[in-house]
């Protein structure tokens, strides 16, 4: 048999996705071998950069078929809501653990963001002179870890990548960081590890409570528990095996995220049936997962690792940290928490939204007080990621609003946009701080000034990217913020007002920082003679970020084309679930149940439009 069965897989996305995922890790493994002799640091850098570029081009080939000509198998179809490019191979059959990958409108843009920022961060890694080989090995492993989290559809695999990502990050901060790097690295590690442990607990809880035998044949095939590739008798046999086990009272557990979501949203969800200490298993799992994810986001009060990690991390690692790692938290909530635990999601929506708004306001206040440029930017991330939480949480499809899902979908779409926009703007802001730090070796906001006259091109680009952070229309920061803020009103007036209030603070801390650093007559700090213009390499990093910040601000459909179909379908499903949930509790079983009745109800709801149907 040998390796042949692996190569002969019938799933067209197997090789593209696997390559995108593992190419960095493979190159990291090769770099670990003594093939490139000592002292050839530049060769290592070029290999690393070339790898990230190759991965980026591959992901671009997959995500944007329009560029390369459409039609190839394994490419992503833009505008389709469902899971695509699914790769489904058994991995550890004893525990039903599969090598199950796939992308949809939520994960595909995030994968692209990851591979794109990895290229820029790799280019920004040139000045790193210390332990070049280990640095690049860890850097590439980190990339595999990040992509892996976004494409995994098996919860166990997800967790493995989550951990794979954690360790390189820890070393990258702890070894290549600033003076307090050890403190920052340990802090990062403890926070994230605490989150991971809780997440593992939740994973196991869900695994052991799950039973794919409760799902219908269609659901089993749709969620790839039974591979759609199987035909005829093989398929029948696989389905029969599951059902017979179920009938025999032997539940078939699963780590399959799609199957877990189908189970969690079913009428008699086993997750809602069991309780410990007064809360359903669903609620426990939701909270444990939520803690794990919000530490990554991060939200107040579990955010204090972020400013320290950023201040100590080298520039490229800050870019990755802010640009990609924070998004893993938001991704986890939208991909895992809500679909798998909808009941808990509904009852804890206030918690998600509340944490979001607290982070927005708290982060903005904290940013205003900072004296360290990078710390200020770090707190702005806390504030901006608060919008993501708020947008994800605004579960306003409730009975008083006639189960209208529009406003909620707008919030989630806004949150997704905000994640991608923040990926661009925060990476840009950290890079801009890094450019200055490389020259004058300090970050004290009180000791800058006059940079506009000393480095006009740099200052223009920097101010542009800070404006994106400010949420200026025409820049990427605006769309996400405004969609989230507008959507929050239907969920809670109080939270909406607080989130609107943040715009004042945001303007204050960003403009004040711009004034202190870039405006003014002369530079007040040390090493003034080192304020040289940007190099070509630096421009090659900064310009794409600024261009994208404008492009996404002017043409948000570029992102929404991917995101909206998937998000809307998920939100619509959960809104429908809410109606079933309410209906079941209000008058057991009396709610519209047949398809025709549902359609009729939907027609009635449409006439009940928010706009008033005159």
């Amino acid at each position: 048999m040998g390796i042949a069965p692996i190569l002969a897989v019938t799933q067209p996305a197997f090789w593209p996705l696997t390559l995108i995922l593992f190419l960095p890790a493979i190159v990291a493994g090769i770099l670990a071998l003594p093939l490139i002799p000592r002292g050839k640091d530049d060769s290592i850098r070029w290999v690393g950069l070339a790898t990230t570029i190759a991965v980026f081009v591959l992901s671009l080939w997959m995500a944007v078929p329009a560029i390369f000509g459409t039609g190839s198998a394994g490419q992503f179809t833009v505008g389709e809501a469902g899971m695509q490019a699914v790769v489904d191979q058994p991995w550890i059959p004893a525990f039903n653990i599969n090598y199950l990958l796939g992308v949809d409108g939520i994960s595909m843009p995030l994968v692209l963001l990851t591979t794109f920022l990895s290229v820029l961060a790799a280019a920004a890694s040139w000045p790193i002179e210390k332990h070049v080989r280990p640095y690049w090995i860890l850097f590439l492993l980190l990339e595999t870890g990040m992509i892996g989290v976004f494409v995994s559809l098996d919860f166990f695999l997800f967790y493995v990548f989550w951990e794979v990502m954690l360790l390189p990050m820890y070393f990258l901060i702890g070894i290549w960081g600033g003076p307090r790097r050890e403190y920052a690295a340990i802090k990062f590690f403890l926070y994230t590890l605490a989150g991971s442990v809780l997440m593992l607990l939740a994973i196991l809880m869900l695994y052991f409570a799950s039973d794919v035998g409760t799902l219908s044949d269609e659901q089993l095939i749709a969620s790839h528990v039974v591979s759609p590739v199987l035909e005829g008798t093989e398929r029948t046999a696989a389905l029969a095996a599951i059902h017979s086990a179920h009938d025999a009272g032997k539940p078939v557990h699963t780590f399959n995220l799609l199957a877990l979501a189908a189970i969690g949203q079913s009428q008699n969800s086993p997750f809602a049936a069991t309780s410990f200490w007064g809360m359903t298993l669903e609620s426990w799992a939701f909270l444990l997962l939520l803690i794990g994810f919000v530490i990554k986001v991060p939200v107040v009060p579990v955010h204090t690792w972020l400013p320290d990690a950023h201040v100590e991390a080298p520039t490229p690692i800050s870019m990755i940290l802010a640009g990609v790692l924070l998004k893993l938290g938001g991704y986890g909530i939208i991909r895992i928490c809500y679909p798998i635990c909808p009941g808990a999601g509904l009852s804890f929506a206030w918690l998600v939204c509340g944490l979001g708004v607290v982070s927005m306001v708290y982060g903005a206040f904290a940013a205003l007080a900072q004296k360290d440029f990078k710390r200020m930017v770090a707190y702005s991330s806390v504030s901006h990621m608060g919008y993501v939480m708020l947008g994800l949480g605004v579960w306003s499809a409730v009975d008083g609003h006639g189960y209208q899902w529009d406003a909620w979908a707008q919030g989630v779409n806004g949150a997704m946009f905000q994640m991608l926009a923040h990926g661009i703007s925060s990476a840009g802001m950290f890079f801009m701080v890094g450019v200055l730090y490389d020259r004058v070796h300090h970050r004290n906001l009180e000791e800058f000034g006059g940079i506009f006259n000393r480095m006009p091109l740099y200052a223009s680009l920097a101010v542009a990217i800070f404006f994106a952070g400010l949420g200026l229309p025409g820049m990427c920061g605006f769309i996400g913020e405004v969609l989230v803020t507008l959507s929050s009103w239907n969920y809670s007036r109080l939270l909406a007002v607080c989130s609107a209030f943040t715009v004042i603070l945001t303007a204050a801390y960003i403009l004040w920082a711009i004034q202190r650093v870039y405006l003014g007559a002369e530079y007040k700090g040390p090493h003034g003679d080192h304020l040289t213009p940007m190099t070509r390499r630096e421009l090659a990093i900064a310009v794409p970020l600024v261009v994208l910040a404008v492009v996404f601000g002017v043409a948000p459909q570029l992102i929404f084309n991917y995101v909206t179909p998937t998000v809307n379908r998920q939100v619509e499903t959960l809104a429908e679930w809410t109606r079933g949930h309410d209906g079941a509790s209000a008058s057991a079983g009396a709610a519209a149940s047949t398809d025709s009745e549902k359609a009729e109800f939907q027609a009635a709801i449409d006439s009940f439009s928010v706009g008033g149907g005159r």
Partner: protein
Amino acid sequence: MDLESLLPTLLGLAWLLPLVSFAVILFAGPRLGDHGKGAAGVATAAIVGSFVLSLLAFISWVAQHPVHAVAHDDHGGAHASADGAHGSPASHDSASSHDSQGSESAHRTVDEGAGHAGQPVSYSGDWYTLYEGGRLRLTIGWYVDALTVLMFVMITFIATCIHVYASGYMHDELHDITDHEVHLADGSHLHRPGRFHRFFQALSLFCFSMLGIVIAGNLAMVFIFWELVGICSWFLIGFYYERKSASNAANKAFIVNRIGDFGMLIGLMALWGALGTLHFADSTGLDGHARPGLFSLVRPPVARHAQLVPDGMVKFAAAEKVAEVLRSHADDPRAGVEQVEAKVEDWRREGYGKWLLLVAGLGIFCGCIGKSAQFPLFVWLPDAMEGPTPVSALVHSATMVAAGVYLVGRFYPVLTPDALLVIAYVGAITLFIAATIALVANDIKRVLAYSTVSQLGYMMLALGVGGWLAGLFHLVTHAFFKSLLFLCSGSVIHACHTNDMRKMGGLAKVMPWTSGTMLVGCLAIIGAGVPFLDIGLSGYYSKDSILAQALLFARENPSHSILFYAVAGGAMLTAFYMFRLWFMTFAGQPRDHHVHEHAHESPPVMVYPLVALSVLAVVAGWTLPGGFGIANMIDQARPAGTGGTELGGLLFRAFTVPAEHASHAHNIHVTASLTAFATAASGVLLAAAMYVWRVISPAAVAAAAKPLYTFLANRWYFDEIYRFLFVLPVLGMSRLVSATDTGVIDKFIEGLAWGAKQVAGFDAWLDRTFIDGFVNGTANATWHAGLELKKLQTGQLRQYVMFIALGTVAIFVLAGLLLHSSFAG
């Protein structure tokens, strides 16, 4: 081409031309001619192009919809009933769409002949969708009516004048500059290269953004360009960014405006959340379904455009009742929905949603408070005078600050009578405070700045007391004479190199053109005219109609008569401080001979715009025989249903907002004209007595009323009070938050870490003692490895990294093998 597709094309191009100019200067800036001199040409060409296109739009509008005097009938109810037939939804031509223009949909609302309670003629549609999900849609689109066309012509004309003027005024920036206001650490002055092209770059972006507000077809688009004019203003105020005062003023302007935007966002949320649309006019979704816009939701044609709390807001406010009804019909959802619809009328009568509508209106008005520098957010505008004078003329007097007034006028149908009364009071307070400060200011630009604030207060007050036309008419006339006044002051500053009026005097002889045109501006702003002949400068007509409407309002609501006294008193203060300015600057003997000797008339490129603007400052208010005039043209755009009397009484005790045409009644009109004349004349005479004839000594007056003088000279201590009430608490709060992070949360985490380290130490001891040397590759070991890192020497690092790399690879090799075995199995 019919108007429906012609107007959006012309105005859309007029709107985009300055953006093209911005992009060209942005990328080619310094290479455009000598030291970027060509930038002025590019920007001016673009704005002239915009002006020509706007003029074409204007002409085609007037050709199609002749401007004539609106026949007033005095029976408010009569035309409302006649209107029912015209205003029915059938006249909404919603099916038309124009792919040829790339527009996604287009709408035309025509209801001619219905008098001014009917729908005004307007064209609307969408160019571009920013977001669409479910029923919700945010777009970039247009809403064009007579007001839009007029505003385009006004803005592009003034902007053209100012571009021409600025190419002379900013001449210094073509060379290296020594900025005498900036002292460097070594005691020298700042020496820097000029940035002529950057000025025109920002000016072009401003024109694009400003026109965007005017053409906007929905409130989201207004908000987008609202923020963009804000940032342009930031760039232009902070043009001399080396000066601390300039960058402070720029930040202050933007942040204070954001406070207003905070309120505006709440207003947007209230509308969006309950109504699901921000479009002014009815629109068509991408799905082809017609969606009613804000105007027809709040003033439904079937209700003859009377203001109603829209269904969406009623249901939103009564969400619990809605839920109750739906729950009680859980077995038959369709019946539940029908039941809800049937109950909406009852709920509306019970008052559900009326507060929401008020909040929406006041929220949007908050944005206008910030942008139009109204009390309590007016403090940024005087500081904004740090920008170059052409900027003050264009951005901070004629256009951007008027955007707030424009938006109140545009949004008028949605504003409830109570919101209007709040607006009136805000306007009254603003006009009074600003006028009093202007009395004692000595900086020529600051006098004009406070005058602008005061005049904007007039416009707000006019809108608030039901004078929709009066307020917007004054907006247009004021734009002409105030930009003229600013450009004149710039000409003076250019000649004297100082802003301080105490160093001027007697300049009329050396600067005849400037002094003459400025006199025209002063006469226009005080509303000079002959009452019984009804002839005057532009300000005469607009100010009279404001006075008349305020008087009418005061008569109908005696408890609010103070609004009229504010207007009348303000008129006198205006006359005084404007002529104080003119006399101090141009009349009498020179006060500072050094300044006077160097003074000279400005070059022609700066004088021509003064003359052009002064002509308009004279004629802009005139109505030609046959009825053609700005006032009548604005009146074509009067929102449906807002011409009549409205009753309020939610925030205030019951009151009436009188119909505007009633203020044309003879007795009201005559009283108002005489009041205007008397107050203006007394103000001018007082100024002359103090500064020309010197029968009253200004110094003696100041000494006699020392506390009052100090109070006014310190601008009512607003900056100090705000610093104490808002700035310091916010900074204190930010420090508190930051201290919580390091002092509370981190201390707690560090305590945990200390504990974890103890556990890890114990664990390590266990390992060494019992499981000696055994590395099991579980999470436990990686945890351990991580914590031990602190003790690592870098020599061991390579091994650790190798371990991680190989470990990761090993996991997946293992995966491959298991995969293999599973296939085999």
